[in-house]
């Protein structure tokens, strides 16, 4: 029986953390909703299992996503995670093969050198020692990078790095000590016995030359064990909890579980899966354009983990979704933020270390609801009946050029349509939702839904991506919901209207709620490519920027918005386009104030490109452009099309 | 060009001093008459000027240099009793009996500040803690801004349009400088007394000059001064000698009551008594606002109804210092043309 008291800290830590993780996982599982439990069971015993294992390997060990975003950061994460995994994996094999017996206790593998100091002198043993030294060296390079990052983040390509709590710092120190202490302990032991490979052997020889290596090794083995034990014990109350939690998250996600709009196990697992890598911080325009550096996803989750008040952080976000699309762990940051917004400034009771380990379920106090309706004053008018109902939206009423263009296009299409909010409508409800006021939002949603149902619409067209998103996601409508860019595209495709070609160089800005928010990328770009010289930009699709005008953020003032708008306008107009096209009245209004380049909504450009028919009573398009568009023959082959192609329901 | 000729300039405020200096440098000999003992007009009473809080003394010393020419003969403590024109020359008799002659006359009699005691409801001259804007400048200059009992005031109010835009006192016009003066003084009060709260009661904020609106915004954003739209209808002295004011908060349509430690009345500008006297003596026409009537609203603001008599500065309408100095320079060119026999009327 090989035993030495120095392994006790390690053993305590290891068994503690293993037990803790098992219990925590069980508890998470128990707290899952019934449907989510079923999903997880099905996922665990189905196809998702293999998928999850693969993802665990690719992401949790290799950190492929971080590699994609940032090579040096990816290498840092990989060397630590994958390297440690290899060290344990091969260490266990090493102990199994070269140890006194098979199937050893874990400490035998971890402290193999201590118990087998003579090991690795020659042949296969030496080769294996070489492998182990190689892995250790691999980890140490990553560790070096991590230390440099901590003090000088741009080295790893990060502009900003997360700030640490006191417990984080203790755990971090322990983590940093693990591998150097192993290196020195192994080296000293190797030096004393003349074993060890290129790293530990060489370093050991050097040290043994002027130090009593044999006697000095022992304290370092203690240090190594204490560092490991401390790290494991601290793990549950630090961000390093992400290491075990992420595995659970991957299984849950692959089983089809999502954040949803309520606090639950999944969002808690997500919260603990964040490694604070900081990619969300670099992606955030509030950070790089407006200098707001303490509200990003990593901070939100950190504060959630620490039980701090997150109401201020939750409120200060554009909800543009750039961080969601870039998070290497796949944490749904925006939905988590929305949960916090709904809960107002309600806080968790967790304040002390004890609760950190055995925390209460992250239940939130019930949000107080007003029973009286907020919008009882809304009239129940009867809308005009039409197949196509156009809803301009509040913001479009401040950019009448867009609604005017849409009316011109609708007139030209010859379809039966009505302008639902001609005299000024009721808000779609999304701004209320974004402020966490779902109950109030439901009131206006019900009101608008009633109007749309009564209008008999088969297609609901809106000019505002904000309205579009909420119409699609939160309204229960019989009508097909289209953004005007989709609708115009369909009119063109079905030959209802014809377009001239505008000889203009256009760059397209994808609005957040239309693009990342609703996945509508191609139609606007195809339409623009059809009527103009659309240039590819550097911020396309998932990588598009927010204009800064977002209604989701009520905290930043006009100065902050202006900074974001100027920054993004500068980036989008770097190629000197004639027109910066967008598909959102709010984007248009926000960007217009930040650039000298003409900013136009896609509907305005379409109306300008519209081939006019001289029909009595037809409202002439108001061409903003001074030069007349050229008719390009053959672009639109005469395609009579019928209504059924536009309105599939008919 | 050296010119022969002599001009009598009445009033040695900023307009009179500027017009005299310009004329003298063109070779015209000037007799500058001032009824008070000192030159410098109202500006010398102003501690700091809007919109940049510069020292009023700067402008006074500038004017002193400008008018300090050997061809300018300054007669202070002198008033004109008679003014007539004989054989192409103006003859003036002073109260002291001395005779002056000139080829032309420039009236630069400026304005008088409205006598705030005429707005009885504010209790000026009766309540201990009601003062005028001009008195506040004196307090700033003395470096002592306290209530009558010597305490540091915590709440201070400014009433705009006292004696302006008020049919009850016969002044229908806007004095146009009081708004910006109130804003300037409110900021200075906040600077001097950082714990104080300052309220401006206005009818309209007329911030038309260069940098005025910016100053207004600064007053709101940086100094937290409250602007309440409504004319103070009455002020009453409380038992502790503070002032209770009543105003309608017109933008919510509710009456508002407020207790203040000090109340400052933004005195408007009126035609000066001296100017009114000159207009009677020389037969100069005045407008309904009692200021001297210009021969043309657009291009005749330096001339009136008597040939050879020119107007400079705020004897024609309320003007700020910048406008007064420009108007005075314009008057000088009109005088020079006249002396050269060029009649551009």
């Amino acid at each position, binding site marked *: 029986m090989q035993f030495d008291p120095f392994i006790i800290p390690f053993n305590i830590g290891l068994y503690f953390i293993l037990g803790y993780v098992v219990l925590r996982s069980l508890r998470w599982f128990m707290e899952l909703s019934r449907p989510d439990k079923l999903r997880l069971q099905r996922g665990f015993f189905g196809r998702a299992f293999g998928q999850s294992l693969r993802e665990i390997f690719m992401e949790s060990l290799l950190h492929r996503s971080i590699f994609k975003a940032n090579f040096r950061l990816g290498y840092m994460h990989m060397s630590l995670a994958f390297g440690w995994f290899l060290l344990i994996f091969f260490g266990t094999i090493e102990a199994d093969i070269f140890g006194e017996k098979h199937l050893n206790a874990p400490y035998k593998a971890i402290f193999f050198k201590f118990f087998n100091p003579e090991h690795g002198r020659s042949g296969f043993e030496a080769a294996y020692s070489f492998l182990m030294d190689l892995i250790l060296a691999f980890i140490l390079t990553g560790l070096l990078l991590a230390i440099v990052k901590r003090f000088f983040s741009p080295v790893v390509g990060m502009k900003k790095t997360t700030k640490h709590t006191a417990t984080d710092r203790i755990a971090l120190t322990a983590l940093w000590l693990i591998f150097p202490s192993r290196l020195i302990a192994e080296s000293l032991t190797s030096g004393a016995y003349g074993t060890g490979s290129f790293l530990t052997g060489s370093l050991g020889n050097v040290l043994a030359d002027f130090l009593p290596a044999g006697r000095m090794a022992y304290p370092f083995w203690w240090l190594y064990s204490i560092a490991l034990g401390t790290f494991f014990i601290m793990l549950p109350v630090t961000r390093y909890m992400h290491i075990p939690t992420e595995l659970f998250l991957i299984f849950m996600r692959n089983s089809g579980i999502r954040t949803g709009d309520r606090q639950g196990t999944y969002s808690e697992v997500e919260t603990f899966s964040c490694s604070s890598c900081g990619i969300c911080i670099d992606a955030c325009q509030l950070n790089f354009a407006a200098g707001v550096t303490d509200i990003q996803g990593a901070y939100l989750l950190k504060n959630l983990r620490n039980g701090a008040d997150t109401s201020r952080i939750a*409120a200060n976000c554009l909800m543009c979704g750039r961080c969601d699309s870039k998070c290497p762990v796949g944490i749904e940051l925006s939905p988590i933020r929305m949960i916090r917004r709904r809960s*107002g*400034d309600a806080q968790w009771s967790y304040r002390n270390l004890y609760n950190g380990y055995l925390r209460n379920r992250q239940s939130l106090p019930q*949000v*107080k*609801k*007003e029973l*009286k309706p*907020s*919008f009882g*004053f*809304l*009239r129940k008018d009867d809308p005009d009946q039409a197949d196509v109902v156009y809803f301009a939206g*509040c*913001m479009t*009423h*401040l950019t009448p050029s867009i609604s005017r263009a849409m009316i011109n296009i609708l007139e030209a299409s010859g379809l039966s349509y009505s302008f639902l909010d001609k*005299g*000024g*409508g*009721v*808000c779609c*409800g999304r*701004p*209320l939702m*974004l*402020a966490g*006021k779902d109950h*109030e939002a439901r009131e*206006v949603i019900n009101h608008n839904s009633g109007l749309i149902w009564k209008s008999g619409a088969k297609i609901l067209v809106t000019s505002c991506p904000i309205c579009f998103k909420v119409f699609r996601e939160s309204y229960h409508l019989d009508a097909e919901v289209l953004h005007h860019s989709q609708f115009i595209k369909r009119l063109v495709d079905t030959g209802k209207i014809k377009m001239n070609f505008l000889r203009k160089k256009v760059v397209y800005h994808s609005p957040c709620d239309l693009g990342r928010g609703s996945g509508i990328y191609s139609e606007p770009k195809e339409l623009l490519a059809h009527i103009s010289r659309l240039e590819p930009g550097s911020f396309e699709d998932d990588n598009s920027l927010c204009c800064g*005008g977002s*209604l989701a953020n*009520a*905290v*930043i*003032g*006009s*100065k902050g918005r202006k900074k974001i708008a100027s920054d993004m306008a500068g980036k989008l107009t770097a190629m000197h386009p004639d027109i910066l096209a967008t598909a959102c009245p*709010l984007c248009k*209004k926000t960007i217009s104030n930040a650039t000298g380049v003409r900013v136009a909504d896609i509907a305005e450009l379409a109306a300008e490109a519209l081939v006019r028919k001289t029909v009595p009573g037809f409202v002439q398009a108001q061409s903003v452009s001074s030069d007349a568009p050229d008719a390009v023959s053959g672009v639109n082959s005469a395609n009579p099309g019928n209504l059924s192609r536009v309105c599939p329901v008919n | 060009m050296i010119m022969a000729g002599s001009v009598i300039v009445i009033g040695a405020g900023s307009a009179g001093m500027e017009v005299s200096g310009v004329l003298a440098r063109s070779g015209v000999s000037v007799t500058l008459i001032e009824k008070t003992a000192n030159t410098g007009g109202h500006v010398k009473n102003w501690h700091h000027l809007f919109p940049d809080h510069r020292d009023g003394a700067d402008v006074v010393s500038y004017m002193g240099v400008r008018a300090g020419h050997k061809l300018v003969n300054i007669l202070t403590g002198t008033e004109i009793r008679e003014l007539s024109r004989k054989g192409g020359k103006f003859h003036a008799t002073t109260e002291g009996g001395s005779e002056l002659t000139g080829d032309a006359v420039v009236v630069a009699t400026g304005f008088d500040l409205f006598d705030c005691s005429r707005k009885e409801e504010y209790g000026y001259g009766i309540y201990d803690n009601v003062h005028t804007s001009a008195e506040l400048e004196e307090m700033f200059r003395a470096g002592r801004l306290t209530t009558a009992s010597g305490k540091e005031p915590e709440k201070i109010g400014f009433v705009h349009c006292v004696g302006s835009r008020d049919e009850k006192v016969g002044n229908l016009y806007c004095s146009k400088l009081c708004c910006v003066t109130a804003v300037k003084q409110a900021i200075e009060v906040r600077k001097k007394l950082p714990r104080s709260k300052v309220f401006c009661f206005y009818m309209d*904020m007329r911030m038309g000059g260069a940098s005025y609106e910016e100053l207004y*915004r600064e007053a*709101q*954003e940086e100094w*937290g001064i*409250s*602007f309440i*739209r409504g004319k103070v209808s009455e002020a009453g002295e409380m038992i502790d000698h503070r002032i209770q004011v*009543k105003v309608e*908060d017109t*933008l*919510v349509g*509710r*009456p*508002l*009551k*407020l*207790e203040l430690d000090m109340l400052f009345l933004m005195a408007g500008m009126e035609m000066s008594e001296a100017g009114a006297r000159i207009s009677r003596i020389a037969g100069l026409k005045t407008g309904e606002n009692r200021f001297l009537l210009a021969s043309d609203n657009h291009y005749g603001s330096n001339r009136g109804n008597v040939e050879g008599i020119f107007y400079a500065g705020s004897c024609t309408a309320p003007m700020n210092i910048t406008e007064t100095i420009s108007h005075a320079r314009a008057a000088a060119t009109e005088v020079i043309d006249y002396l050269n026999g060029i009649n551009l009327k």
Partner: protein
Amino acid sequence: MNRFGFSLSKGRQINYDTNDRSAAEYVIAGEPSLLACIECGGCASTCTSGNFTSFSLRQLNILLKRGENDSLRDELRKCMLCGKCTLVCPRGVNTRNVILLAMEAFNKSQDYAV
């Protein structure tokens, strides 16, 4: 009802000195841009809710600043947060935050949600 058949009526006068201005101070501390308001009414004239009912952010802001809090709690709830007011404000007042902070202030001070 007493035996006189009438009672002292509550005046309409705003008593600035006795009113509780803590809600206004809370809002201004969180959103200092409110100080720049010139009460022009741009917000109220473009207001989506104001199109249907007597809701005026301009008036609300003034009452808030004066500490006339009684009617505000119910009035604030009429806002749909659509953000048009923020876009039209000539002084760059972050109006939506003003409303949210005012709601928060009343939530904190009153044991009752806006």
